[in-house]
């Protein structure tokens, strides 16, 4: 048995007792990454630096549970001296000159970064197939997508390369690939994790979060990356808390709302049945489960299209071929430099979204579409507030089907949005959402349950997720 397959407490004890060294863990991680290289989980590996760091840690005291453990970072978080591409040709040679706050934090916890993971270009997509570097594959079935946009992070954790990865979630990009790959994936409350150094897609929706094989590891990583950051205006000033504190506590008496829309015909029969089975487990353990009506859920995708594309068109204006990134040669004017650089180096999905976003924010359209979307967005939040005044959680499936085939057509511009229909409302309201694997389909592909909590109630979500993890005993990734 590899050391990396042991529990976090066991690994920690071995390190403390000097029976193993961080380099043993790093070597195991790279052996696995190299063996799985056809899964295309990484854009850039950090092997030399990781080995160097592991050696440096040999002289340090083992000061926390995550000490010396390898972690993968999604390639839209900047890493000083380590290429960061956001899976785009426009950043294919970009080497940042500073670290994102989350990267600083994992380094301070003495975790070891093994590489930068594959993703949809600028996190725009739901299958990681818009990556300039080709799509990652699902370790459960290599013909299938691992989801997106944090597909590479999901692939590398599910295949057992590393126990931890960071993802980012603008409209489901942590939870959906976690569901497709059988992982625990948390999108924390907006403001919990600093966005400083996260290459912005839609600033009012983006949030970084942990992806792991189990609930405890997930909560431990959130402990490390959360906390106020004065460099991010939207970072919450709430005091730091221990997200593991409720794990193992009794869940009886909790109340769960299941919106009828989440269990409607948009969800496949197989996924629905698995979620129903899981709800039965909760009921048997004295959790009240009520099916409820909730307004505006069916509008969330359209609101997301307006808000996310609008914000993206503004955020991606910075890629102009001047200050950093790729640039065309021999432009005769500044206008030509902008338009030709962006035409050459942005991918199709990104161009479409920037164009639609620019249109939506231009002139009178801002009032017709954008302001209207913000009004309905506020009502979605009020609907969640209404449910949370009576219930502890809102629950449903994370995805409408299990992972689909890598070679399924990509010619429908609406498809990547509809894949995230069940997870987008959470970003709209800034709430925390978590995927917990609850079983396998007939094809042996993972099915995930989506637990939505009230703002800053991640600890309680981990409590419920840990209970289900124990009851269901989901077999880990391949």
């Amino acid at each position: 048995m590899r050391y990396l397959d042991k529990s976090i407490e066991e690994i920690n004890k071995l390190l403390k007792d000097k029976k193993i060294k961080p380099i043993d863990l790093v070597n195991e991680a790279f052996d696995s990454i190299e063996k799985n290289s056809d899964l295309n989980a990484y854009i850039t590996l950090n092997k030399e630096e990781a080995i160097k760091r592991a050696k440096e840690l040999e002289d340090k005291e083992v000061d926390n549970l995550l000490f010396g453990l390898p972690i993968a970072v999604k390639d839209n978080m900047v890493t000083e001296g380590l290429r960061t591409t956001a899976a785009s040709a426009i950043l294919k040679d970009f080497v940042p000159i500073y670290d994102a706050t989350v990267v600083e934090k994992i380094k301070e916890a003495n975790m070891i970064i093994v590489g930068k993971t594959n993703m949809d270009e600028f996190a725009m997509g739901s299958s990681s197939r818009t990556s300039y570097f080709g799509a990652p594959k699902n370790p459960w079935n290599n013909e299938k997508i691992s989801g997106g946009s944090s597909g590479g992070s999901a692939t590398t954790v599910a295949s057992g390369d590393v126990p931890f990865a960071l993802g980012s979630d603008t409209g489901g990009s942590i939870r959906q690939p976690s569901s497709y790959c059988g992982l625990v994936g948390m999108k924390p409350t907006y403001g919990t994790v600093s966005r400083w150094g996260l290459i912005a897609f839609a600033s009012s929706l983006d949030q970084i979060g942990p992806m792991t094989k189990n609930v405890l590891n997930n909560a431990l990583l959130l402990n490390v990356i959360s906390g106020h950051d004065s460099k991010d205006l939207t970072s919450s000033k709430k005091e730091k808390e221990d997200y593991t504190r409720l794990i193992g506590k009794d869940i009886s008496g909790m109340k769960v709302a299941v919106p009828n829309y989440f269990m409607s015909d948009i969800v496949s029969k197989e996924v629905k049945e698995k979620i129903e089975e899981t709800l039965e487990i909760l009921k048997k353990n004295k959790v009240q489960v009520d099916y409820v009506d909730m307004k505006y859920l069916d509008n969330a995708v359209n609101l997301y299209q307006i808000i996310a594309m609008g914000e993206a068109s503004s955020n991606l204006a910075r890629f102009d071929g001047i200050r950093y990134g790729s640039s065309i040669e021999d432009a005769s004017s500044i206008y030509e430099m902008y338009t030709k650089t962006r035409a050459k180096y942005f991918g199709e999905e990104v161009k479409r979204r920037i164009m639609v976003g620019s249109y939506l924010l231009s002139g009178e359209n801002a009032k017709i579409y954008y302001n209207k979307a913000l009004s309905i967005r506020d009502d979605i939040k009020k609907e969640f507030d209404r449910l949370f005044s009576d219930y502890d959680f809102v629950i449903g499936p994370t995805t409408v089907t299990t992972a689909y085939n890598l070679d399924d057509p990509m010619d429908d511009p609406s498809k990547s949005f509809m894949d995230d229909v069940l997870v987008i409302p959470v970003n709209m309201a800034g709430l925390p959402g978590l995927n917990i694997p609850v079983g396998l389909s007939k094809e042996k592909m993972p099915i995930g349950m989506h637990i939505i909590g009230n703002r800053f109630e991640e600890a309680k979500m981990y409590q419920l997720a840990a209970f289900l993890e124990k009851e269901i005993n989901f077999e880990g990734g391949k």
Partner: protein
Amino acid sequence: MKEKLTREEVLHVADLARIDVTEEEIEKYQVELKQLLNDIEKVNDVEGYDDDMMVAPWDDNTTLREDVPGEMLDPKKVVENAPKHTGNYIAVPVVITENESEGA
């Protein structure tokens, strides 16, 4: 609902987005962009919501930090990240052409 944008509409949004488009792409975007805009049109069918707007999901922490000098990035490193630079300056193509300067 019409199924295609006009050529001029595509050229207009491409200009707003500062993205050069080829003839072939114009035809493709006439259909693809229209499909997305048709999706978006559906918000106009939504009823019953109030006028309050949610610009972003934070409400308790929008304070600016103290205006004190902090650590700066090294200007040398910053310009080295630019595709073209001269000394501590980033080099760019001509911004104002002769015609424009005469016109102004």
